[in-house]
């Protein structure tokens, strides 16, 4: 999956990014840049990272998510990851990775509720 194929969609006052199944480091880095640009342009309430199709999450990806959450917070937004697969959650935990203050939701719908109800 090339970095160009990434899309950051603005839905109402939120940003929605669908992360591809097996993103390379370039894509992950590009994701951060694109999200921050969109944050500046739209000043949304928060960011939803849809990782429903992501098959594995290693330390680089985890660190980038945690950092992005921090940066988005500095720009006044919350970050929610949505739809992490059970196998990925177990592996991430066992590996000892943390996602910092990133919030989590079972799917994009619930992530939207979470952001909408957050003041």
């Amino acid at each position, binding site marked *: 999956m090339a970095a160009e194929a990434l899309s950051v969609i603005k839905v109402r006052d939120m940003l929605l990014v669908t992360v591809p199944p097996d993103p390379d480091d370039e894509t992950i880095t590009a994701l951060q840049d694109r999200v921050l640009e969109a944050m500046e342009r739209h000043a949304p309430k928060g960011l939803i990272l849809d990782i429903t199709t992501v098959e594995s999450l290693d330390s680089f990806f985890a660190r980038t998510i945690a950092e992005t959450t921090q940066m988005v917070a500095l720009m006044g937004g919350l970050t929610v990851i949505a739809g992490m697969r059970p196998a*990925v959650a*177990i592996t991430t*935990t066992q590996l000892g990775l943390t996602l910092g203050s990133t919030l*989590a939701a*079972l799917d994009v719908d*619930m992530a939207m509720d979470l952001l909408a109800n957050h003041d």
Partner: protein
Amino acid sequence: MSKNTEKREGKKAEKPQSKRGGGRATPSPAPQAEARESGPSQGPPLSALFDDIEEVVVYVSDPETYELLYFNDAFEQSWGNALGEQCYKVLQGRDAPCPFCSNPHIFGENLGRTYSWEFQNEITRRWYRCLDKALDWPGGRKVRFEMAIDITQLKEAEEVMRAQADEIIELSTPVIPIWRGVVVAPLIGSLDSRRAASLAEDLLTRVAETQSQVVLLDVTGLAAIDTQVAQHLIDTITAVRLLGARIVLTGMRPAIAQTLTHLGIDLSGVATRSSLAGGLQIAFQEVGMRIVDEKAEKGRRA
């Protein structure tokens, strides 16, 4: 089984006239020639009754000297021809009478009673159900008579069943949806690494399937908790959080709470309740429901 039969028949064919295998009883006053006819002082001789029965081991021994006075073919096949030797030596490979000898159950005040017991023989490694009884022997003595049925297959089947039952108890933790968005998982027994791994997998899969926001993990039935079990619990809690759900630990017994604290395990940030009901209350709040006690409400209004 069929192999045994063949072998025995072969043996018989060689020497058809002499009934081998059955040890001849030799009560002291009787000459060797009459031994064959000896047996209980009344009724048919033991050899006529039991020599050919393959499925049942039969022997007679003297309760004073422990000498073997009679045994059948089935006995000889497993323990050899040991007429006149001590039963504890032949049957158990011991130098002294067995500590579990059942003679007290059939002699003395128990004379006349039949005693039934099960045990695993050290030499054949097989299980037997034994029936013991005192018998009158020529010369006026009372002797020990035992019939033993091989129940090894039965025991093995039992063992398999018990192991399977254990496995079911040890391996699977039911994850039960009790309300839209709420599942309950009661932990029962002990939690080793293998079971903890399958628990985490089952639990997370069910949470994702049912899109449940709250998991009530009930530890009432958890046998014990140590650092490793606690670590597994914490890992499971963390992984569930990554999915976007939360775990409430319920059934926190005093012993478990004490152990957790003594082990220095930090569960702050994890909601815990001593009862499942307390957990339910949190769960319903989380999914936007409220429990109303109608009786109490009415009472207040009245």
